[in-house]
């Protein structure tokens, strides 16, 4: 096609056709559509929607991550609230009992009852942790896919920082009394710190994060924790 062919002879219809042809060739041409990747996300979002029949749809979408944080924050707030109310409902503890008879009963019910109360108090936190791990897994999956395509979202640091804050809250919560959960949260914290500290699309930094995730088998452990969440949480 010569330059003259492109825009040349002044006939408006001819010019329109040439402009359209050039636009089809040059204006934001689409790469091959990532069908399978999109399908996986669509299915995940639909499954999530189906499991929350009473709430409005929350599509998994990389440019609307704030909905995630709202969910996590809500889960933590509810967790804290339930935990506190459970604490108050459990009433005075053994050291505060002055009546010798009651003290004897409290002593008799002893460690098992205390353990059970502790487990009850920790339940909301474990639920919040399970939710957090699921979302962290989704975030890291997205991060990995993007970093391999060298197309990191500019908001990635912000999202990682939000997840990091929640991870640290959970590390200080009763959810972290479970040693396995504690180790997982600590490893997640390390990886999130590395992502927060990334400067642009630094290939060495990305590789460092990637290797760290592999070394700690983080994705595998997150998936396992997510899969086991209902059992772990006692549901």
């Amino acid at each position, binding site marked *: 096609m010569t*330059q*003259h062919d*492109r*825009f*040349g002879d002044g006939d*408006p219809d001819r*010019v*329109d056709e040439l*402009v*359209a*042809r*050039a*636009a*089809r060739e*040059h*204006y*934001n*041409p*689409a*790469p091959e*559509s*990532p*069908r399978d*990747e*999109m*399908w996986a*996300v*669509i299915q995940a*979002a*639909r499954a999530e*929607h189906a499991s929350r029949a009473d709430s409005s*749809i929350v*599509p*998994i*979408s*990389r*440019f609307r991550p704030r909905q995630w944080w709202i969910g996590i924050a809500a889960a933590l707030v509810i967790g804290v609230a339930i935990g506190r109310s459970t604490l108050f409902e459990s009433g005075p503890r053994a050291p505060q009992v002055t009546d010798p008879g009651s003290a004897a009963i409290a002593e008799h019910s002893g460690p098992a009852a205390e353990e059970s109360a502790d487990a009850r108090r920790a339940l909301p936190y474990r639920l919040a942790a399970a939710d957090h791990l699921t979302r962290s897994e989704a975030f890291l999956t997205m991060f990995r896919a*993007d970093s391999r395509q060298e*197309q990191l*979202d500019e908001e990635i640091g912000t999202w990682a920082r939000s997840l990091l804050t929640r991870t640290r809250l959970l590390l200080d919560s009763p959810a972290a009394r479970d040693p396995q959960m504690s180790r997982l949260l600590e490893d997640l914290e390390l990886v999130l710190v590395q992502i927060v500290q990334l400067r642009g699309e630094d290939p060495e930094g990305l590789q460092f994060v990637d290797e760290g995730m592999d070394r700690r088998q983080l994705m595998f452990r997150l998936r396992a924790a997510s899969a086991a969440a209902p059992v772990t949480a006692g549901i």
Partner: protein
Amino acid sequence: MRAGTRRPDEDRKTGNHVDDTELLARIRAGDRAAERALYDAHVDRVYRLACRMTGDPALAQDLTQDAFIRAFQKLDSFRGESSLSTWLHTVTTSVVLNGLRKVKRFHRSEADLDEARRVAHQERRAEPDLKQRLTAAIDGLPTGYRTVFVMHDVEGYTHEEIARSLGVATGTSKAQLSRARARLRAELAEFAEEWVA
């Protein structure tokens, strides 16, 4: 029909047509393979439009995903007043085009249009590169003109499809296309004169 663009009617001619009625019945019966077949039949066209409109494949991917999530969610409301293909494209393109308005990066690129126009006007003599000039000229169109131009002249949508997707009259779509073309002719004619000379 534009090169590189496929419509459902073309798919029929090439043997890729998926029987909508049968598909719908299977989907409503919970057949996942049927859902996937419906998705496969239409996803490329939706994704391509999203790419053209955003210039950002990752963002186009997000928009396409949202579009199909909404479409599957609304499938129960399909009453058969049009073909399933037409209905699906109306829903998905509406979601894509509405989504564009909500995305920060898109707004930012709109805010940069002044810069694009400056490039188009001031630097064209220094670097008469067709791709850059064309991109700047199309980006410089008002949003409505650009949308109709891209959908019709670049991606091969009919005015009826555009009107349904945008919720406007067919006449509005035609008028906007006509104005878009006139603007592009004016923008690019200067280059043509230079190049021809």
